[in-house]
């Protein structure tokens, strides 16, 4: 005679329902909030949909997708083996015009100036008891460059990948809220109204030579980050040489979409309750915010100094774009500028420091990896 009660109990024990913890439920709620922000509020849906959904699935006991042999586990191998971040850069390079950076070399310095936040967060993390390698990974959040943060973290402190990647991407999505108050606090109304001179025309030949020269420089002087920058520049060369349009189109659209999906799922799959719901996560998120605020501030202050030295020709609002996060930070400079003067189009001017910020983050990360012996 079949005991239905016993049978039901045995079936129930096989489901994830009996093994679910409070931590799992909290993480499922966090995943759901990410989905809401991505789909409902349209905050970086390309990132938040994949991360949020994988976070939910990973925290359902028994799903096994993030366990060894599961599909998300294989997606994570692309991160662990450092394959996905350079491929993201390949796509980004193919969709980016480096003309604004080539046109105005003096503004390139803002790409380094806006990275003070990296070092403030690094020192803060060290003071709070993190190891130096962990502190460097936390600091690089201030570089506002997702693939670079992942790349550095995987080499220095892979156990912090979920917290660091979530903090980096979340703050990048929130830059339109974080940066404007800092920018307004550090500039006068008159400075924000400055209209900058039109940048010079950059020829096709210059745009073709640029990636080749950067590849040589980075491979020669900064080998730890050469895979990332080489792929960024390869993508850009595909775009600029005019002969490989189909390839450029594929890497900047189809390939970039596929890689982004795999990467976001891989990041979400690391957000297990036992790893994520810790005091460390809270500290990393606070330090990440500190890094973004100080990075924005140092960029604006440097741009103010450059404005004084140039006799009032540089709008200090473009300084904050040096933090990287292309093109979000440049767009923020433009929007804040337009609030003061509707006829002020800062986007092209801000793109120069913004693109230089990508190199600034890579240089900082490369130096860190070299100094720590990676």
């Amino acid at each position, binding site marked *: 005679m079949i005991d239905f009660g016993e049978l039901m109990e045995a079936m129930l024990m096989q489901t994830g329902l009996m093994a679910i913890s409070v931590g799992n439920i909290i993480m499922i709620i966090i995943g759901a909030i990410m989905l809401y922000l991505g789909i409902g509020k349209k905050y970086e849906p390309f990132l938040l949909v994949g991360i949020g959904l994988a976070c939910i699935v990973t925290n359902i006991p028994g799903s096994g997708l993030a366990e060894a042999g599961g599909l998300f586990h294989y997606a994570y191998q692309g991160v662990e083996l450092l394959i996905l971040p350079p491929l993201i850069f390949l796509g980004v390079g193919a969709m980016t015009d480096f003309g604004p950076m080539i046109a105005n070399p003096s503004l*390139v*310095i803002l*790409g380094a100036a806006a990275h003070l936040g990296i070092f403030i967060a690094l*020192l803060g993390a*060290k003071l709070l008891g993190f190891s130096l390698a962990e502190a460097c990974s936390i*600091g690089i959040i201030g570089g506002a460059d997702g693939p670079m943060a992942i790349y550095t973290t995987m080499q220095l402190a892979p156990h912090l990948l979920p917290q660091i990647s979530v903090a980096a991407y979340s703050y990048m999505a929130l830059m339109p809220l974080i940066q404007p108050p800092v920018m307004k606090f550090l500039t006068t109304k008159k400075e924000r109204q400055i209209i900058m001179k039109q940048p010079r025309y950059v020829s096709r030949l210059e745009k073709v030579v640029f990636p080749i020269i*950067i590849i040589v420089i980075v491979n020669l002087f900064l080998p730890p980050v050469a895979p990332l920058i080489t792929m960024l520049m390869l993508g850009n060369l595909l775009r600029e040489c005019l002969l490989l349009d189909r390839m450029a189109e594929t890497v900047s659209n189809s390939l970039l979409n596929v890689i982004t999906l795999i990467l976001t799922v891989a990041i979400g799959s690391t957000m297990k309750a036992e790893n994520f719901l810790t005091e460390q996560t809270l500290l990393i998120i606070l330090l990440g915010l500190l890094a973004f605020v100080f990075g924005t501030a140092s960029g604006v202050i440097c741009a103010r100094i450059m404005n004084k030295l140039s006799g009032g020709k540089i709008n200090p609002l473009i300084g904050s774009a040096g933090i990287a996060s292309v093109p979000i930070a440049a767009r923020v400079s433009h929007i804040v500028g337009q609030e003061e003067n509707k006829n002020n189009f800062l986007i092209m001017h801000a793109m120069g420091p913004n693109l230089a910020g990508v190199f600034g983050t890579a*240089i900082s990360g490369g130096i860190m990896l070299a100094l720590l*012996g990676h």
Partner: protein
Amino acid sequence: MISDDLTGALSLSLIDFILSFVFIAGIGAILYLFPYINKLGEIKEEDKY
């Protein structure tokens, strides 16, 4: 190479921040020379494959 304490963190930050400026300034200096590349020739936009 660098000690895992606050002094090490401070040294690393200082070295990194200064070297970042040097590298970026180097890239900037190279970009100043870019207009001269145009003296070598030109790629016409209509030269598309």
